[in-house]
């Protein structure tokens, strides 16, 4: 009881704890989940903000860089163009003057041009000529000094202008005019370079073979051309020549040119520094890098080994180079030498060149990345603070849980006590009922289910009490009936004669019987009684139905059978009367199956009527069992006024007749089946019926032998008789006489009777031997045969009749009867008495 109380309280506690824990854990979990969500969002926001800011800044920076780079490119291009505009002006001046001289030579005086001064580094106009003008193209290849032509003398007027141009323009290194005829007037600072070795004359200058001359000679009047960057013929420096044709009468007669060293341009380019790693380069109309801030890499200038950028493997670079060559300006982002760079370019239209500026992207967007880094750093810090907040919250939550737990346990205990209190009281009350006190009433007024339970218990107790009382009554009644049935059963059993020890003084038969009704009383019964000294009545019967009615009907039946079967009444008549008596007043339509027989003890003859009963069994001396199969009459108590027929059979010595009620039939199998004694008993015992009556016919004092009537079996009968008689102590002489009688009588039966069976019976009593011979052949009394006339000689009288005559003469008595289809010859012989002497 105590354990159960604790259990319920424990359950309440656990339930409460469980619920509170679940609620708190749920709330805590949701809170923490919320906090983590907020943290995640804020982190994501920070990251996005940083990214956006960086992107925006990058965009702005890129824009600024583009602007700056383009401005730079345009500015530098303009600067270089301006420089070359001055050079161009020189060339135009020289052309104009030369054309004017050619147009009106007479208006100009003759002026000689001096030869270059050997070793001079002073600015001076110098005369040079082509080889074709040399008077003697001698062995040394210089020839002599040609005679100045009028053309040269007139053109000599340009020498002052040429010198002036050179002096006033820092871009110009030399200014000259070369004629179609081979003359050349040149103003520069390098007169020393015009001589080779000790040659007294300056080197020939083949102006017509030079690029600037050829380009200009093909040009229209007034057009100015530029050469590619080339090595100066005199001092080897990179230079570019600006030239223009001199027309006279529609033909080119001379070309004016101005050589310009690239040093100036170089400086402009190389000085262009953008940011930390920015640089510039100059591209001509053929896509070749002329000058570059880079000494190597994709955009370096490789003099004499020009590379056309338009054919570069770097597609972006090639496209940009194409744009440059076409004279466009532009801005793009590309990869150069493996680095992300911005590239801006602007055209130098007159020169057909392009000025390009390069700046590294990383350098441009560095500030933007820096700001993104800072923003992300700040975001991290915020996240750390949030983590700290969550940790604090978890701590608070755990503390609260620990604080609440004992409170819940306390509350749970209080509640469970409240709930289990009434149940404990109820248990106590019920325990009283358990002790057997059904009058005890449970009084609990809690107003809840416990009170309902108590009321239910009370109702149940009432019901149990009623049932117990009722059960006691019923049991008492049943016990009374059972006792009465027991008494009745005993009475019924006592009514039947006790088989064991009955008629102990009678040697002729022995009896065995059993009757155990299945349920107290029943309708099975057996009976036996002597009608007179020689006749025994045997009865087995089975009343329809069970129990008391059957038992009562059995008593009636038995009484009727006892009173009607009598010595002086034929059995069939007795049975008919019994049936009529049973039919009268049989309102319950009860009936009885019965087998009633009368055994004549002296002969073993059995007369019987079977009124619907199962067939009895006969166990032969040999152990063979067979049914007594005779047509049945109707059951007793069934149809009034009906007649019955008797049947007869002979019981031989040691044969047993077994009567039983139904049940064996089914179990026993076919007729004439071999049964051992054990097998028969087993069959009977295992059958449903347990009512049996067995009578064993011990014979009428005769030793009997039955056999087939043939001559061969006579010896067996003889031996049988000899054995019986010797055993009984009959004298040998008498035995011989009896053997002779047997021989005579049996041989007669074999020869003449036509019997199927013959029996020899022997009895020795008070020194008298009685023998009977029985056969089922034709009725014939041998004693009636006339005796042979022994007075006559045997040979003179009819033969035959000798055997029976001998028997008659030698035995003490002979008797013949014919009864029940049997011839019976009985002979007697007193032992030790000579009958015939």
């Amino acid at each position, binding site marked *: 009881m105590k354990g159960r109380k604790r259990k319920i309280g424990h359950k309440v506690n656990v339930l409460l704890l469980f619920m509170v824990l679940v609620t708190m854990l749920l709330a805590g979990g949701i809170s923490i989940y919320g906090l983590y969500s907020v943290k995640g969002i804020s982190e994501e926001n920070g990251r996005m903000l940083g990214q956006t800011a960086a992107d925006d800044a990058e965009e702005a920076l890129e824009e600024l860089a583009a602007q700056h780079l383009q401005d730079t490119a345009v500015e530098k291009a303009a600067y270089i163009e301006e420089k070359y505009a001055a050079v161009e002006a020189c060339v135009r001046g020289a052309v104009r003057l030369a054309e004017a001289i050619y147009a009106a030579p007479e208006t100009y005086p003759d002026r000689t041009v001096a030869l270059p001064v050997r070793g001079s580094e002073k600015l001076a106009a110098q005369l040079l000529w082509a080889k074709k003008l040399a008077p003697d193209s001698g062995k040394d290849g210089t020839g002599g000094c040609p005679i100045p032509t009028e053309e040269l003398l007139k053109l000599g007027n340009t020498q002052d202008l040429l010198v002036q141009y050179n002096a006033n323009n820092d871009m110009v290194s030399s200014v000259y005019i070369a004629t179609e005829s081979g003359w050349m007037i040149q103003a520069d600072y390098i007169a020393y370079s015009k001589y080779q070795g000790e040659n007294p004359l300056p080197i020939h200058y083949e102006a017509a073979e030079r690029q600037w001359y050829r380009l200009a000679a093909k040009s229209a009047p007034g057009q100015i051309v530029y050469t590619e960057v080339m090595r100066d013929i005199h001092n080897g420096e990179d230079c570019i020549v600006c030239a223009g044709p001199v027309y006279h009468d529609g033909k080119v007669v001379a070309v004016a040119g101005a050589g310009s060293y690239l040093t100036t341009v170089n400086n402009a380019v190389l000085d262009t520094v953008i940011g930390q790693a920015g640089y510039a380069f100059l591209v001509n109309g053929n896509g070749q890098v002329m000058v570059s801030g880079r000494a190597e890499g994709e955009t370096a200038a490789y003099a004499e080994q020009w590379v056309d950028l338009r054919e570069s493997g770097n597609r972006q670079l090639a496209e940009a180079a194409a744009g440059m060559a076409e004279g466009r300006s532009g801005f793009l982002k590309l990869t150069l030498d493996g680095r992300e760079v911005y590239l801006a370019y602007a055209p130098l239209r007159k020169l057909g060149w392009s000025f390009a500026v390069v700046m590294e992207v990383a350098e441009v967007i560095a500030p933007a990345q820096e700001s993104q880094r800072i923003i992300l750093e700040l975001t991290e810090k915020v996240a750390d603070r949030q983590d700290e907040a969550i940790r604090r919250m978890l701590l608070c939550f755990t503390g609260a849980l620990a604080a609440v737990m004992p409170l819940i346990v306390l509350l749970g205990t209080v509640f469970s006590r409240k709930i289990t209190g009434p149940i404990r009281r109820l248990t106590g009350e019920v325990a009283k009922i358990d002790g057997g006190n059904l009058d005890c009433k449970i009084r609990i007024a809690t107003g809840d289910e416990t009170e309902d339970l108590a009321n239910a218990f009370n109702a149940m107790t009432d019901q149990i009490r009623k049932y117990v009382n009722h059960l006691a009554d019923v049991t008492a009644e049943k016990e009374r009936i059972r006792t009465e049935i027991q008494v009745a059963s005993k009475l019924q059993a006592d009514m039947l004669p006790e088989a064991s020890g009955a008629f102990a003084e009678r040697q002729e038969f022995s009896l065995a019987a059993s009757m155990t009704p299945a349920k107290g009383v029943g309708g099975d019964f057996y009976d036996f009684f002597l009608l007179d000294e020689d006749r025994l009545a045997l009865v087995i019967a089975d009343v329809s139905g069970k129990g008391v009615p059957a038992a009562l009907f059995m008593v009636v039946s038995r009484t009727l059978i006892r009173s009607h079967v009598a010595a002086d009444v034929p059995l069939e008549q007795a049975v008919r009367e019994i049936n009529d008596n049973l039919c009268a007043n049989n309102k319950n339509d009860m009936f009885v199956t019965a087998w009633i027989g009368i055994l004549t003890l002296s002969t073993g003859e059995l007369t019987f009527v079977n009124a619907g009963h199962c067939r009895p069994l006969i166990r032969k001396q040999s152990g063979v069992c067979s049914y007594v199969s005779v047509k049945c009459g109707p059951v007793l108590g069934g149809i009034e006024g009906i007649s019955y027929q008797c049947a007869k059979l002979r019981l031989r010595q040691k044969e047993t007749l077994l009567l039983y009620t139904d049940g064996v039939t089914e179990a026993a199998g076919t007729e004439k089946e071999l049964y051992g004694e054990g097998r028969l008993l087993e069959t009977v015992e295992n059958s449903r019926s347990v009512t049996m009556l067995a009578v064993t016919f011990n014979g009428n004092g005769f030793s009997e032998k039955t056999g087939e009537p043939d001559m061969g079996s*006579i010896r067996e009968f003889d031996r049988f008789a000899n054995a019986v008689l010797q055993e009984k102590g009959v004298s040998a002489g008498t035995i011989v006489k009896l053997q*002779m009688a047997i021989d005579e009588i049996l041989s007669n039966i074999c020869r003449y009777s036509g019997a199927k069976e013959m029996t020899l019976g022997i009895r020795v009593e008070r020194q008298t031997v009685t023998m009977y011979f029985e056969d089922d052949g034709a009725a014939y009394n041998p004693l009636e045969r006339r005796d*042979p006339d022994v007075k006559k000689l045997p040979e003179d009288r009819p033969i035959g009749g000798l055997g029976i*005559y001998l028997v008659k*003469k030698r035995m003490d008595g002979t008797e013949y009867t014919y009864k029940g289809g049997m011839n019976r010859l009985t002979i007697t012989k007193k032992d030790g008495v000579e009958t*015939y002497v």
Partner: protein
Amino acid sequence: MTVDIRTEQGRLLVTVAGRLDTVTSPELEKILKENLGEAHDLVFDFAGLEYISSAGLLVLLTAHKAVKKKGGKTIVRRANEEVREVFFITGFSDMMELR
């Protein structure tokens, strides 16, 4: 039953032992028929014969008749009381010489 046949001086000597009854008679009858032949007289030695039945008597009668036809006679000797009694009862003792 055992039968011994001997012929001496025109006499057939038949020695029968055991029982001469319904079962054994036919055998004796057969032996006699075969051996009777030229014998003038018939001598039965019944010293070993236990008893004789009517069937045995009939065999003797038949044999006797055959001997008598030739003018001979039948002699039964050494028969026991039992057999003698049968002979006397049936009148066979008148017909045969009992010794």
